[in-house]
């Protein structure tokens, strides 16, 4: 990889770091093969109707998505704890926490709101209506 050194041209003012981390063919190929597998399995699970129970399917599909996102982060976005002295990783962790709270909080609050709404149909028997509150 001798020609690579040419990118570190000395006449540039020492900023050679901001042209990105060194990436390798094997790193990209590992990510590519893994992401194909991690994409194909969920599609197969759904299209071939392998898992019939909805909750199980949601959990399995979600797990595959999380793993694939991690693979993309590491293999394609070259994420690790050392880039930028760890600030990239730290800002990512912050975003993940923020996103998790925002999405989970929204779903929870909106679900609770729907569950506690007054029933839409006034013709429902009174017993059923009072039963909703308990």
């Amino acid at each position, binding site marked *: 990889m001798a020609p690579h050194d040419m990118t570190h041209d000395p006449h540039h003012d020492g900023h050679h770091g901001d042209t990105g981390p060194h990436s390798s063919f094997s790193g990209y190929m590992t990510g590519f093969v893994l992401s194909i597998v991690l994409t194909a399995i969920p599609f197969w699970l759904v299209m071939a109707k392998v898992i019939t129970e909805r909750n199980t399917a949601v959990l399995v*599909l979600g797990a595959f998505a999380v793993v694939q996102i991690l693979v993309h982060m590491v293999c394609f976005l070259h994420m690790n704890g050392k880039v930028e002295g760890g600030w990239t990783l730290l800002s990512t962790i912050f975003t993940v926490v923020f996103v998790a709270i925002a999405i989970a909080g*929204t779903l929870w609050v909106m679900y609770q709101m729907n569950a506690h709404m007054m029933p839409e149909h006034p013709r429902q028997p009174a017993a059923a209506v009072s039963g909703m509150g308990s």
Partner: protein
Amino acid sequence: MSDLTLHAGAPGAALTAREYHLAHDPHPENGTSLGFWLYLMSDCLIFAALFATYGVLGRSYAAGPSGADLFDLKLVAINTAFLLLSSITFGFAMLRKQLNDVKGTLLWLAVTGLFGLCFLALELYEFHHLIEQGAGPQRSAFLSAFFTLVGTHGLHVTFGLVWLVVLMIQIGQRGLIHENQRRLMCLSMFWHFLDVVWIGVFTFVYLMGVL
């Protein structure tokens, strides 16, 4: 403060202190990539809001069609394949860039652009098909949320493609100079980030939508 005046008092010490500051770059080693990463993270928050909206409204069909009625998973699988392939070809472009190979970089960028264009064309076809069926964004809350989320992602891909073409012209004119390498690094982060968002879209919108 007192330290500084002390150094200024002694001419020799002040000189070495100045040289010390010149030799060491006051900027962080790699500021651009961190700054661009922070932009991507804030973009992530936009998508988080749209995913949350879809999560809340995704089952509000208003007696209209549901995801299971509308989504063609084969089409989505092909679309996903296009985006994955464009990710790896962008990786190849970055590898050619490391070897200072202008033609190779441009070639792989062009292939990446083609895959991106295929992705976009297929998505527009899907949107057109849905709207023709009467399942446009005004049909139900589910479809509004769907079109906003997937459309925002598609808009990002569109702007990524515009950026890609501009950068290819710049590389064609100036070669792989330092500035173009930096731009290429930012675009590669943007492109791979869009792929990461698409993982969320095909999992939570399409696959879970037809369950």
